[in-house]
């Protein structure tokens, strides 16, 4: 019985994993497929996307037509359960009272975590992204290079299924032939932006997203991923065959009952469970990593949210995959004689260098997109194109006033309408009502575009998390207090986004409909709002100034690993999820090697 309740654990596991999202899912998959006995703890409830996804439910059948509310911040049909920037009973605090320094922390309490609703954008870090300090003297180099991680990117992309194309662009790696699935055709607004982006030198190309544009090859991939392991091959082939190709309807953020996109609950956990090597306890909120008299990790203490009772589970290895900041919290709360400042924190770096992605957004209205003949543009339930950072050379030559790049995610299509979709009609039609308003609604529907910049943030000393000495959550667990301050490089980058997106809209003959901020200070989103938080337990080559080694193994405690975004040394503009999974796979391989060698 794979899903167990808190009182039914085995006396000992090889590995205890805290968290079930991209990091926990990948770690559990890699280990259990190779015979390692794993126990996974998830703080939220069990969740079954096949049964629970409201695939074809229309807005008319949702309260408030599906609009965002404090209970469901991304809308009623968003897959997130018990989550958001506020989680009932689980507060956090901010050190600064200044609104611009406020950090927002998104959590999702459900099996599979944020992978159930995420945008599925799956971009590889490039070679520069692992050696940023060497390139421009800012931030930190990673102790690994692109070549170290490339084989794991190959594996993750093959396992989860990613569509996209190889464009051979600078610092935007190609995948080996045959790994990426065919990219879906671009939509009207995407094509129009592409056409006019060219004039500005902005390259608009197929995006990479973890959506099956075609079914995965269940004969070839399992054999390649699990050589000499027929049982793993058989299990994976069977699970792959249960995944359908995208049928070009419904939004990915709802989750996918036909398993056409990646979420941990449809891709990682089913095969892992099928091995019989994985037990999962949901509603298990981790408090601390427990240690023995030598300071080694022995297991995890957690509270069973259904009964309020505390339990301890034992494992040879403990893996924190709770999300970068939740893992920081667990470590800082795990204090003992050996680990007075929290487990793994002899460097004092646990909680330091937390990063998010720089976000900037501009909207516009494009007359050329008015009165387009109705046609189906739902597609893969999210973007089909993006613009990878295109100004590496100019930046390196010192022609820009900010050091790191961003990519552009493009919004604009004849997608499903929502409350607010037509708020602009008052201005566009100078206040019309009556039958004319209906004609205007048809005319303008689909003519609005939005461009979202997603840029690299350089780690800085002002952005860190610590334990709030006063505040505890409803389980009595001390909470995190955030310190946040955007630095000049990020603010200037956000200003560049605004300027560029406005130019892109004007180049299409359009009108900018949101405020352009030339200073960047208003343009930049608050820390945490892009929900790409990484860092806090950075990896490095030196135990004095980093928390883990290159295999995400803590320097202080050899049997404690962190496989979420915590060990990131930088936060490239590339969305972090694919890199989290690649690092988790690599760390899991290393764990198995070390166990075999008897080192752990």
């Amino acid at each position, binding site marked *: 019985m794979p899903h167990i309740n808190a009182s039914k654990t085995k006396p000992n596991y090889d590995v205890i994993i805290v968290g079930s999202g991209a990091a926990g899912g990948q770690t559990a998959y890699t280990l259990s497929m190779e015979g390692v006995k794993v126990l996974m703890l998830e703080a939220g409830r069990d969740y079954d996307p096949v049964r629970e996804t409201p695939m074809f439910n229309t807005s008319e059948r949702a309260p408030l037509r599906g609009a965002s509310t404090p209970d469901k911040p991304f809308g009623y049909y968003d897959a997130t359960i018990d989550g958001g920037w506020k*989680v009932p009973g689980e507060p956090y605090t901010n050190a600064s009272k200044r609104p611009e320094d406020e950090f927002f922390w998104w959590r999702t309490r459900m099996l599979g975590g944020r992978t159930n609703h995420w945008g599925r954008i799956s971009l590889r870090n490039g070679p520069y992204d692992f050696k940023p300090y060497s390139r421009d003297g800012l931030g930190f180099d990673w102790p690994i290079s692109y070549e170290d991680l490339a084989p794991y990117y190959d594996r993750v992309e093959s396992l989860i299924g990613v569509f996209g194309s190889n464009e051979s662009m600078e610092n935007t790696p190609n995948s080996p032939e045959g790994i990426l699935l065919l990219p879906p055709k671009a939509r009207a607004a995407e094509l129009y932006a592409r056409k006019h982006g060219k004039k500005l030198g902005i390259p608009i190309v197929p995006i990479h997203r973890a959506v099956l544009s075609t079914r995965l090859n269940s004969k070839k991939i399992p054999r390649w991923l699990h050589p000499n392991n027929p049982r793993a091959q058989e299990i994976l082939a069977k699970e792959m065959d249960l995944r359908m190709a995208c049928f070009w309807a419904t939004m990915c953020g709802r989750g996918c009952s036909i398993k056409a996109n990646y979420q941990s609950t449809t891709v990682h956990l089913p095969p892992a469970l099928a091995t019989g090597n994985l037990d999962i306890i949901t509603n298990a909120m981790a408090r601390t990593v427990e240690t023995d008299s030598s300071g080694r990790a022995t297991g995890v203490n957690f509270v069973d949210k259904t009964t309020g009772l505390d339990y301890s589970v034992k494992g040879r290895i403990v893996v924190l995959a709770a999300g970068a900041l939740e893992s920081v919290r667990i470590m800082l709360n795990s204090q003992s004689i050996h680990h007075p400042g929290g487990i793994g924190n002899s460097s004092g770096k646990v909680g330091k260098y937390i990063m998010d992605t720089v976000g900037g957004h501009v909207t516009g209205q494009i007359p050329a997109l008015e009165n387009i003949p109705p046609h189906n543009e739902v597609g893969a339930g999210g973007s089909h194109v993006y613009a990878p950072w295109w100004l590496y050379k100019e930046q390196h030559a010192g022609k820009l006033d900010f050091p790191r790049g961003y990519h552009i995610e493009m919004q604009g299509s004849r997608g499903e309408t929502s409350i607010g979709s037509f708020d602009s009609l008052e201005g566009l039609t100078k206040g019309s009502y009556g039958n004319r308003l209906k004609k205007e609604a048809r005319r303008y529907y689909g003519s609005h575009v939005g461009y979202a910049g997603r840029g690299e943030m350089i780690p800085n000393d002002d952005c860190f998390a610590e334990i709030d000495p006063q505040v505890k959550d409803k389980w009595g667990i001390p909470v995190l207090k955030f310190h946040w301050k955007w630095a000049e490089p990020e603010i200037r980058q956000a200003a560049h986004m605004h300027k560029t997106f406005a130019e892109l809209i004007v180049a299409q003959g359009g009108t900018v409909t949101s405020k352009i901020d030339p200073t960047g200070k208003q343009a930049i989103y608050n820390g945490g709002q892009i929900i790409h938080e990484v860092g806090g337990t950075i990896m490095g080559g030196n135990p004095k100034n980093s928390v883990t080694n290159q295999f995400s193994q803590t320097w202080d405690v050899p049997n404690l690993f962190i496989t979420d975004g915590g060990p990131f040394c930088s936060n490239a503009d590339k969305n972090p999820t694919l890199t989290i999974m690649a690092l988790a796979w690599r760390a899991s391989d290393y764990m198995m090697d070390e166990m075999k060698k008897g080192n752990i």
Partner: protein
Amino acid sequence: MKQEFTSKRLDRRAAIKWMLAATAVVPFIDAKSFGKTEPLQVGYGTDPNLMTGEVPWDRIMTPEQLRTTTVLADIILPHASKESPSASEVKVPDFMDEWISAPYENQMADRKIIVEGLAWIDSESQRRYAKDFHQLDLAQQNSICDDICYPPDTRPEYQFGAKFFSKFRNLTLGGYYTTDIGMKDVGYVGNVPLASFEGPPPEVLKKLGIEKAPW
């Protein structure tokens, strides 16, 4: 003045509910309270049954308010054809009632504007024609709407009416075009499984001056 509009239309039960909800929501209004205070245990909660889409709160509009809402919504989006019915034919007034009755901060702010605005438009009708809004003929109704339908051109004495009309029109549009019928009317095509995604048809590419799809 505003108080008077409110008490004229809200029955006691609704008024008490509104007052209680308004009191309860106060800590929520401070944006700094993000992550620091408990969300209110109201509304459909953080784990609703997405399949049933149940609306747990009661509607608060009085029959009089619903009648005025119906008339005004149908002036904004009238019946044009079988494919393009009026706002009330797709139950926009019921949606409006659901919306303003919801116990969330944004909706409660809208509730204040809508409830006070519905009272205002009757009061304005009375002032001009000695009748309530629903009793006016279309030309009379339009004469009021014309004075409040575009805030930049609105005379100072009608600013409140214009603010109300903006909100009411946006909710009418949102309510109408999020129905299955409204989506179809506006030209949304989707929510059907396809064997393949072909991108824009040739006539769309042609209109955009794109010779052929790049991939």
